[in-house]
């Protein structure tokens, strides 16, 4: 995304939200996003909850964007990365909270998942043992 397009997005977002990292859109673009750092937006006057925004860096980031799933929440359309990737990736991240999240997602979606796809991600991220230990038990 070039700077001009980002500035248009910024101008729209700051009508309802504020960036808690920097108030300057050029800084947000040049100092943060172009250097692979994220920025965060929250509702005016609040710090939490906030939405993290960053540019894709790895092939996996791009794949997530290109293979996103559509979710309608309160009549708003959201794009999320595939649950079959989210579960192995959380196991890869490795904190207790990530493990809890992975287990929660698996329990919630286990009947709807493409198990072959998730297996392949577990193999590539080397999380198969963790998956069996944490999600399957």
């Amino acid at each position, binding site marked *: 995304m070039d700077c001009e397009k980002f500035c248009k997005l910024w101008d729209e977002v700051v009508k309802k939200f504020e960036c808690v990292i920097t108030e300057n859109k050029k800084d947000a673009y040049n100092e943060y996003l172009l250097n692979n750092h*994220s920025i965060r937006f929250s509702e005016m006057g609040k710090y939490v909850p906030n939405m993290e925004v960053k540019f894709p860096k790895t092939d996996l980031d791009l794949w997530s964007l290109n293979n996103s799933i559509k979710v309608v929440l309160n009549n708003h359309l959201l794009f999320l990365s595939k649950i079959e990737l989210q579960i192995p990736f959380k196991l*890869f991240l490795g904190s207790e909270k990530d493990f809890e999240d992975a287990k929660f997602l698996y329990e919630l979606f286990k009947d709807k998942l493409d198990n072959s796809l998730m297996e392949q991600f577990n193999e590539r*991220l080397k999380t198969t043992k963790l998956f069996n230990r944490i999600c399957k038990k």
Partner: protein
Amino acid sequence: MQKIVLPNIDLRELEEQKRENSEERMEFIKKYAEWIKKKSNREWSSQQAKIID
């Protein structure tokens, strides 16, 4: 059914990304703590309570 082509996964790159994300999160927590110090207990705790509840 459309065949899904998986991405290249470089584990060293992802480990590096994980480390950077962790540092970034720590920076964010420091900024959040600074923000909390400037606000009244009622204000920051009511925002936290909404998330927890």
